[in-house]
């Protein structure tokens, strides 16, 4: 019998794909972006002094409209360990992170958003190193991090304090500019009480705000609107300095198209604007899904502005809302960063008509594709049974967008689609990490910020794969 500890999550190494020279943090995604248009848009230097800034009404911070999300940091393979059954180990490519952060700072980005949970727990440390290495003074940039006490054993007062103190240590600083209660909403009010209220962790954080160790206190929200409303109703008590919400032109009106438990961006943004609370935007690109669009949406957008990337529409959209403090983007590659810098240096706001066009026409077109609303954030990972959940969903969505998920054998392209789906599946996900191995333990679902019923979707995909293989679709 093999040592039990082999199963322990402590020993979990990086992602599986040894072939991927660089993959985003914790996985093999392409980061938030699809392809950028080749020449043209990328020629000429990116301006260093044209970044659009928004002012935080509470502290007067001038925050760049582009915020750097440190969740999808680039990875690189490391020398394999002696254990042959372990997945090919990877670690954060610190050199690359340093380069990206320096480049961002040089071009006016000054907001960096991390968390103790990101990148298997290495994101804060990496962010701290990169910011130090940039040579910029601590006063020139803002650090956002979170209290990510998701596991029950982390939900005591003591553990909460420890997590915050560790954040200071890893980020090599003595204050945090923006501190968030991480992903409240999932699990309802009960979960909120358990994580922050009953154990006094929120009181502790408010004390720290008094002392200046936290300059702005807020929360990031996913899921149950009851929790959002509760926190809004108690704004007088907690004085939220900012709130981080998921917002993009699809979620503005159609957030519940993918899941009835998701809340429209329009409502969330409206509630914040009403109270004068600045909004930090996450998922402006839906984990890259709004840049990897089906062909005819790409054509429609590109026709309007042939030289702009598909992603730029999503960034300009959120930037066009005046109460947005900053829009976060998890930029794994330099090309992502460059494209976003161009989009926001300076921001050319969308007209009201353009915004409506995106919110209605394009968004409706987009949701007509039955993709799974996975943003490849990897909060569900690691799966204790070794599945690569986001990779399965990313592959499925790719096939949906390419028209490679045939409805039945009568479909015109059935043979080609079948081959593309099955061959691509084996390429994207090693056999042992495919959906067939899901036992339905359900450990993943509570972690999903998009409220995806993960085991159900995995079983559905597995059924589909079986039918494709057996030609019984």
């Amino acid at each position: 019998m093999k040592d039990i500890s082999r199963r322990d999550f402590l020993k979990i190494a990086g992602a599986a794909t040894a072939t991927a020279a660089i993959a985003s943090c914790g996985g093999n995604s392409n980061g938030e972006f699809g392809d950028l248009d080749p020449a043209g848009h990328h020629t000429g230097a990116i301006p260093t002094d044209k970044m659009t800034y928004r002012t935080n009404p509470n502290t007067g911070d001038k925050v760049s409209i582009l915020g750097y999300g440190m969740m999808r940091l680039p990875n690189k393979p490391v020398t394999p360990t002696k254990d042959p059954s372990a997945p090919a180990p990877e670690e954060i490519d610190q050199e690359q992170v340093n380069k990206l952060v320096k480049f961002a700072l040089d071009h006016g980005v000054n907001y960096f958003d991390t968390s103790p949970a990101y990148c298997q727990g290495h994101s804060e440390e990496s962010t701290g190193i990169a910011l130090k290495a940039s040579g910029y003074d601590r006063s020139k940039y803002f650090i956002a991090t979170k209290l990510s006490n998701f596991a029950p054993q982390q939900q005591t007062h003591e553990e909460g304090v420890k997590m915050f103190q560790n954040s200071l240590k890893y980020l090599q600083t003595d204050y945090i500019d923006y501190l968030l209660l991480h992903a409240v909403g999932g699990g309802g009010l009960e979960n909120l009480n358990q994580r922050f209220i009953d154990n006094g962790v929120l009181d502790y954080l408010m004390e720290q705000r008094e002392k200046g160790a936290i300059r702005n206190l807020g929360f990031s929200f996913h899921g149950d609107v009851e929790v959002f409303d509760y926190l809004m109703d108690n704004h007088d008590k907690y004085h939220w300095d900012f709130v981080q919400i998921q917002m993009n032109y699809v979620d503005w009106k159609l957030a519940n198209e993918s899941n009835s438990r998701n809340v429209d961006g329009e409502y969330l943004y409206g509630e914040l604007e009403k109270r004068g609370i600045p909004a930090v935007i996450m998922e402006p690109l839906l984990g890259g899904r709004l840049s990897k669009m089906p062909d005819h949406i790409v054509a429609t957008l590109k026709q309007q502005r042939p030289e702009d990337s598909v992603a730029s529409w999503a960034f300009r959209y959120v930037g066009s809302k005046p109460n947005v403090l900053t829009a976060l983007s998890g930029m794994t590659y330099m090309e992502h960063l460059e494209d976003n810098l161009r989009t926001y240096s300076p921001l050319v706001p969308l007209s009201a008509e353009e915004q409506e066009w995106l919110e209605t026409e394009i968004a409706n077109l987009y949701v007509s594709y039955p993709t799974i609303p996975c943003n490849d954030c990897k909060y569900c990972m690691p799966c204790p049974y070794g599945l690569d959940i986001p990779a399965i969903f990313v592959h499925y969505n790719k096939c949906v967008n390419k028209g490679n998920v045939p409805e039945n054998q009568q479909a015109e392209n059935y043979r080609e689609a079948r081959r593309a789906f099955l061959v691509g599946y084996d390429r994207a996900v090693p056999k042992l990490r495919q959906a067939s191995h899901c036992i339905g333990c359900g450990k993943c679902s509570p972690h999903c910020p998009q409220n995806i019923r993960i085991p159900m979707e995995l079983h559905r995909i597995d059924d589909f794969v079986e039918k494709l293989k057996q030609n019984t679709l």
Partner: protein
Amino acid sequence: MLKLTRRILAVIFWLGITILFLDFTGTMQPILGWMVKLQFLPSVLAHHLPSIAIVLVLTLVLGRIYCSIICPLGVLQDFFAWIGRWRIFRKNRKAKFANKYSYSKPKTWLRLTVLVLFIVMLVAGFNAGVILMAPYSTYGRLVASLLQPLYIGINNLLAHWSEAQDNYLFYQVEPNNNPTLLIIISAAMMLILFVLAFLHGRTYCNTICPVGTTLGYIAKFSRLKMQVDEDKCIKCGLCEKNCKAACIKVEKGEPVFVDYTRCVVCGNCQTACEKGALHLAPVGRKRLNQGQSNTPNEGDLSRRSFLAITGTTMAAAAIKAQEKTTDGGLATIEDKLVPERKTSLTPPGSLSAANLQQHCTACQLCIANCPNGVLRPSTSIEHLLQPEMQYDKGFCRPECTRCADVCPTGAIKPITKEEKTAIQIGHAVWIKENCLPATQEQKCGSCASHCPAEAIQMVPIDKSIKQNPEDGQWYDAEGNQLDWRAVNDLLRIPVVDAEKCIGCGKCEYLCPARPFSAIYVEGNDVHREI
């Protein structure tokens, strides 16, 4: 003319059969499959009368043309011998022919002894000896163990390229993990054959090969034979020196002697003869020496009893699902280990492990063709190199009948997909010590939800919760009915209806317990229809 025709046909057969062994996609099987079905020993074992008749008629008309064209091992040896010629040509650049052979005396005693020995081993079921001597399966093993890994390697390189180009032309396949024993046996055979053929031409075919001996003595009665026109013959001996079968004897003052049991009708002598004295021509009704025809006895073979291996030990794979505190990363997946099965699993269509053992010549064609990584050569002495099934890398997929399609010996008889769903090759056995719900209070049900035969049900561990046979609902001790949600929330264990189970191994493959599954398939002594 004869030589050229023979060469062209030989290359076609040789390539066809080789491709059949290399092609893991199964696309060539409908086009080339008949080539292996024509192989003599396999068709005898398969009782495949049309194939036997074709070969016999061919031999009775043309002589041992089978050995020159249809047998891939024969063609391979010709190739080795052809390489051997260059040794001669390097020394003498002007030579028209290699002139490297000379007549050798017939080793009738040795040949017949070997043939008898072979038949005895076949009847007695001494499989290891049989497969080592069988020519076609020897060739199959050479390709499957030495060439296919290279072929797959190249394919995977192309797949890598294909992936980079984002097209789906090539796809990655698992490299075949041949047991060392197979590689050693193949490499040794390769070396022996190479040396023999390089130096002496068809020595193996005319001493060891049981098919060669059998067909040789049949060829004595063939209608057409390579004959010498004594009027034109000047006894120069060129034909003898170029006969790779060493069966032509030229002596001054004597008529040229040809041993037709050894002649493989290659036509080399005819081409070498400067006087045009050799012809493949009908023989008159002259009396021939009494030759003995020896077809392998294919009578009723006794069933072999198998050693019952008891005391199967299963180590529990403890999966400790800890609460995660950070995001991302992949859990380590421990490799599955194969359980020790009392009766080995053989593919649907093989009727039983015993039947497979009797008919299979271990050519590896089914193993090279298995797309699911299920079939692999056995290393046990009684099933030496014959296929057996293991479910650590995949399971026997319901839509696949590839092994039955390709098998030339009838060891795996052809079956349809529909027939396959009703053939029970084994039955699933539950091992409590490994099962997550039973040992770690982790709800599972992977085996039951994946079973294609619906032979596995999940039942509550708590025996006080009972199913009412009338409405099929579950009731707790107080008699309250539980809805499906409540039932799903119970810790339940799988129970197998062995009557329904077909032994496909999907449960074993997908069981989350590692390295040993909590459910595994035990082979049936004899396959049965359900």
